[in-house]
């Protein structure tokens, strides 16, 4: 499949945004992190920005972006429609929490937190942050809703791919857990950065993040192994129905130039490029793991460690998603002799 940058940006950005929302709110609900209004505000604002950039990028690649609103109408049958609808619904708890957090900021907190995030850890450990926490029941309800909605949105995104039978690389049991794990992993790493920035003790969050990076990495390697061993759903013989006469090969292409089908669905990445990219994915996932371990276990939380960590996260996410598209083979390519 053609790895369109709009779709790669959409799935990685929005996946990360929803992951951040899920992890940030879940850690607060679990009591691993105080319900600091400024942390909720900045965390969810970043999540809002990532999700919105992703969604805008996905609508811009449409032939008719001005008709995008129609896409939420067919939720009864279409996973793309369900995703659009869930993305809109998720803005509700996200928006309510952002506004509530803003209303509950202590005086001059807006400027204060920015300063605190940059200055030393000790300064932010003071009483300032604990003054007003969001403990109302309805805030908890909104947080629970936020986690569920964000999770469902990532789930529906994954189901768009999972449900496409002609693409065997997508139509399998790995895709949904991979999308959810990638999202949670990215979200947990950003939550760690926020907690360090705000001077909170990482406790379980650092370890959870390490576990998530490890689990995602393991599942991805298993996915690649399974894809290498996979028997194709369809063959040139079943595509033409001529298998009873013998092996089918292309004698004459249907057209001289690449058409839409070839450009969109006939994309094939060279094996050596794929192998090289998989090496980069392994390398940068390992750096993610190493830096998060350094931050959470050895308290090695200099800004440059977090910068390396964040950069490695971005690279590994983009490489993974690019390969997810580029390596996926569509059944229609069989008609053109691409096995």
């Amino acid at each position, binding site marked *: *499949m053609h790895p369109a940058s709009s779709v790669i940006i959409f799935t990685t950005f929005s996946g990360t945004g929803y992951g951040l929302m899920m992890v940030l709110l879940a850690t607060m609900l679990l009591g691993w992190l105080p319900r600091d209004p400024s942390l909720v505000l900045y965390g969810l604002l970043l999540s809002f920005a990532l999700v919105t950039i992703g969604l805008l990028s996905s609508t811009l690649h449409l032939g008719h972006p001005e*008709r995008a609103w129609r896409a*939420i109408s067919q939720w009864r*049958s279409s996973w793309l429609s369900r995703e659009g609808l869930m993305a809109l619904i998720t803005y509700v708890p996200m928006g309510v929490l952002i506004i509530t957090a803003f209303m509950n900021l202590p005086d001059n907190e807006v400027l204060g937190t920015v300063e605190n995030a940059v200055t030393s850890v000790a300064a932010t450990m003071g009483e300032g942050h604990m003054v007003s926490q969001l403990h109302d029941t309805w805030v908890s309800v909104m947080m629970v809703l936020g986690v569920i909605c964000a999770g469902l949105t990532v789930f529906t995104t994954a189901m*768009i791919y999972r449900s496409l039978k002609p693409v065997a690389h997508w139509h399998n049991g790995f895709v949904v857990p991979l999308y959810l794990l990638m999202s949670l992993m990215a979200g947990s790493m950003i939550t760690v950065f926020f907690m360090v920035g705000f001077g909170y003790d990482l406790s379980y969050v650092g370890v959870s993040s390490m576990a998530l990076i490890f689990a995602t990495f393991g599942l991805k390697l298993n996915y690649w192994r399974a894809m290498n061993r996979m028997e194709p759903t369809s063959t040139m013989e*079943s595509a033409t129905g001529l298998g*009873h006469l013998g*092996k089918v090969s292309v004698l004459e292409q249907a057209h001289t130039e690449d058409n839409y089908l070839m450009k969109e669905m006939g994309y094939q990445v060279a094996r050596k490029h794929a192998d090289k990219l998989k090496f980069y994915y392994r390398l940068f996932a390992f750096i993610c793991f190493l830096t998060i371990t350094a931050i959470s276990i050895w308290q090695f939380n200099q800004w440059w460690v977090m910068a390396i960590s964040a950069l490695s996260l971005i690279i590994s996410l983009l490489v993974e998603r690019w390969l997810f598209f580029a390596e996926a083979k569509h059944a229609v390519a069989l008609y*053109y002799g691409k096995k």
Partner: protein
Amino acid sequence: MTCLPKEPSGKKLGLVIDLDICVGCQACTVNCKEWNAGGHSNPLHDKDPYGGEPDGVWFNRVHGYEVTSEETGNSQTVYFPKSCLHCDDAPCVTVCPTGASYKRSEDGIVLVNAETCIGCKLCSWACPYGAREYDDTQGVMKKCTMCVDRIYNENLSEDARVPACVSSCPAGARHFGDLGDPNSGVSQLVEARGGYDLMPEQETKPVNKYLPPRAKQHMKEETGKQLKKQQDGPKGLMKLLDQALSW
């Protein structure tokens, strides 16, 4: 609505393509383009048609395959026209987020409403056959309409109310009719010739059927020996005589 029709009429208009007859002359593809460039889905874009990199939407394309028998090593050429199969379980319809893609309950034809299509291309990803092509000049998806603007067109004479590809086939390799009716001509043809579905494992339940090429008549062993004898000519004394006399 992009749900499949809950109460289909039972009528399934479709094509039966005879691979034993098709010689890949491309008349069907050209007439399809000609008719549809002005019909229901007009215009069908044609970029750089006489230049180095022509590009455009075609609803019907003819592939050429070579099939090689693993037992005998003999091969045969099969020309293979492919267009939308108007599937009963059309995945291109159910994935559509806007309702632009739909299957008609009255005759099973799958169509795209160009007024509401957002051009997300997901339907083309969902179709294993490559029946849908994106028109980047219009920003919408295009596909075979089963010439819905011909087959019910009362301005045309009755015998012309068939899809353009069927009307133009000079060899009679394409048949049109109701595949939902077991007594129709096309259904009986499918029955008699062992018509089959493309990629049944994709579970799309195509309406269009393909008739397999008839088994090639391979030379019998006896005939082969006879022919070789004729080619080699006489042997021994007769060969000497033959050579002596044929100077």
